[in-house]
């Protein structure tokens, strides 16, 4: 009896400590269920689709994680994405001979500018991130409509090289996937092995201490929003290239999906906590739901409800496990 209690407790604490393991377990269970319901789920072709479609979410979620760690939030990324996608595609349609790398750079630049403006409002002026990014969300969205004059940039206006950004592949792997892997590895190194990366955690964990340690938290905040902007800019170009169409309402409301991925990945809204591997898994979990629900013939109208239910369940499950661990620890203390 005593042994069983200990065992149960240790399993629980493992789950609590290694949130990623829990997520992987959940992903595996879901995959098995989907595979049983539709054997086409675990095929190379479908998995490639799944990953390709999730790359943009992963790229954005990595940036959002940094923002959330500093106790911030960025609601403007959907609009930033649309604006940079629109600007770069307008640009390539005007100069079709342009190197696609330049288009990517242009998109990133637009994103960075959007990010710097938000970062400035948050860090220097001191506006709360939720309000500042809410305002800018409207402004950037308006600018997107305005810059295109109400039109779309569609497939035939884009040179093949530009559309190729998202469809080409290197060594048999889609470029999008490669970009996402590169970004993931870069930021994995950045947050875990660089001083600046750790300072982001420090600012989110305890801003006052950070001040005393001599960390320039304003600079860190500015940096974090700039990175988020840059990543949204990149995502904008990839999005437009992938769908070969730039519209005013591109990615409207997408910011909430990104935040949901972070939350599923164990990032705390209260700051200081979040691991990049967790975020990756959170994004993949959402990607699986998006990919598999249509495959197993779930009515499209049920997808949203199922997603909401799973997010709520995952979040509650985490809390309940943590509580059980604490209870167990208390029970072990003999009084």
């Amino acid at each position, binding site marked *: 009896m005593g042994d069983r209690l200990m065992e149960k407790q240790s399993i629980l604490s493992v789950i609590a400590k290694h949130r990623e393991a829990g997520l992987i377990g959940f992903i595996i269970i879901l995959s098995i269920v989907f595979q049983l319901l539709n054997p086409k789920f675990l095929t190379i072709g479908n998995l490639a689709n799944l990953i390709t479609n999730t790359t943009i979410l992963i790229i954005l979620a990595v940036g959002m994680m940094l923002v959330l760690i500093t106790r911030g939030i960025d609601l403007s990324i959907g609009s930033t994405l649309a604006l940079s996608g629109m600007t770069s595609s307008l640009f390539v349609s005007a100069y079709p001979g342009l190197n696609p790398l330049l288009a990517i750079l242009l998109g990133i630049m637009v994103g960075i500018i959007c990010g710097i403006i938000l970062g400035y409002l948050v860090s220097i002026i001191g506006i709360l991130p939720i309000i500042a990014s809410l305002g800018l969300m409207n402004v950037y969205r308006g600018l997107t409509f305005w810059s295109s004059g109400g039109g779309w940039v569609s497939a035939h206006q884009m040179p093949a090289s530009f559309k190729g950004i998202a469809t080409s592949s290197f060594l048999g792997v889609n470029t999008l996937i490669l970009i996402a892997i590169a970004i993931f590895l870069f930021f994995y*190194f950045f947050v*875990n*092995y*660089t*001083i600046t990366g*750790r300072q982001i*955690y*420090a600012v*989110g*964990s*305890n801003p*006052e*201490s*950070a001040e*005393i*340690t*001599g*960390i320039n938290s304003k600079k860190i905040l500015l940096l974090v929003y700039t990175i988020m902007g840059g990543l949204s800019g990149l995502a904008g170009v990839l999005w437009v290239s992938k769908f070969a169409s730039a519209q005013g309402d591109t990615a409207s409301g997408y910011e909430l999906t990104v935040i949901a991925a972070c939350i599923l990945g164990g990032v705390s809204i209260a700051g*200081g*906590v979040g691991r990049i591997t967790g975020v990756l898994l959170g994004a993949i979990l959402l990607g699986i739901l998006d990919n598999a629900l249509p495959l197993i013939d779930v009515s499209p109208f049920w997808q949203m409800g199922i997603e909401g239910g799973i997010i709520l369940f995952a979040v509650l499950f985490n809390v309940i496990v943590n509580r059980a661990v604490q*209870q167990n*620890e*208390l*029970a*072990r*203390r003999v*009084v």
Partner: protein
Amino acid sequence: MNEMVLELRDITKEFPGVKALDSVQFELKRGEIHALMGENGAGKSTFIKVITGVHTPDDGEIFLNGEKVDISNTKEAQKLGIAAIYQHVTNYPHLSITENIYMGHEKINKKTRKIRWKEMHQDAKKLLESLGSNLDPKTTMGSLSVAQQQIVEIAKALSTDANIIIMDEPTAALTHRESKELYRITEGLRDDGVSIIFISHRFEDMYRLADRVTVFRDSEYIGTWNVDGISNEKLIVAMVGREINQLFPKKEANVQEELLKVKNLGQMGRFADISFTLHKGEILGITGLVGAGRSELSQALFGIEPYDSGEVYFHGKRVEIKNPSDAIQLGIGYLPEDRQEQSLILDWEIGRNITLSCLEEISTKGWLNERKERSIAKKLAEKVNVKTGSIFNPAKSLSGGNQQKVSVAKLLTTDLEVLIFDEPTKGVDIGAKSAIYEIIVDLANQGYGVILISSEMPEVIGLSDRIAVMCEGRITRVIAKEEATQEAILEAAMSKERTVSAS
């Protein structure tokens, strides 16, 4: 070589509207422990921030090893070998011990700029071991006890190769035993040639540790003495500016009928089998080491974290206390340990703070009666003698002691019969301390039943009629006033034997 490692001359620092330091002096010898004392608001904190480069002084000079230096930011202070351990623990709760130690001076690979985690973990482990701790450096800071965090803070200071370490109230949150451990570490550092500035309200710390003591009062320098050359009374006069004749006021012995009776109270993992009675007009002291379950017990009695077994009787009638409003309704009041976090709303006016817990009584059917509210607030603020001009000043404008008085005033608004004081003089300077003691005794004399929870033994012994000592979640002994000595209490606090309930 100069005997003085650090000298500060005529340091002045002004903030808009406040002169925080007015031309103060300070000298620190190599390898000495120098106590810095003064009431809250005397300018000690600002002074430390000047030394560590958080604030730049408006006027005055700083000499390090005889050379004039400018310390314009914290990085520079660190380079000069100055480190500080602040009063409010300033760490990163979500990060590992290693990171907390090395934040700001991480070890990196010069070429790749990559953080060398392995090396840092190893070094952190060594540092901790040198301080006699076997904590795993990968543990997250937030899961440590305050004393353990304190050790990490010291390790952090050592990791910068500091030869001047400033400790701001390091013992405030420590138990007796933990304090002793800290003394040992501090003395060890001194013997290694580190100079230490030690700030504390506890006279005990100073006598035990310091070689010399410097006193500030009202932003001014008062003087420096050798510790063995100054008496307790003289020091108090230096700090307070007047004499305090009697710290513990005399209490009438008018213990009356039974008020509160607790039987076999327990809460999983925190405390168990707690039984005692409290009478009208009695002060029941509860003490013990940190972690003995004192605060948990008092919070359970007030319904903050409800108990899960046992019975509570009030005036002989069995009652259930599930949340603070139940307790207040019954007539049990609670003065929390951390007044800034748990009692006061610092942004609010003093008056609103005072009336917060009695709004139901002074309103009619839920509608506020602001006139009545004002008059009650004014009356009570005057009763506890808050030093302020108007009840509309914000609570954050008050000193710690006066904030505590406002917290006490909050308890007097409602018809309470039992008052629980949880560490009422923590972080309060000696002047305000005596005022708070006076209030507590006065309340007991008026017929309140008072439960006084404190880790300061002189306080418990000086005020209580009976003292219940807790150890690891249980009451190990109940000592009557007459038999109460520090030794007796300590013995009970460390014994694991259980004695009969305190009825």
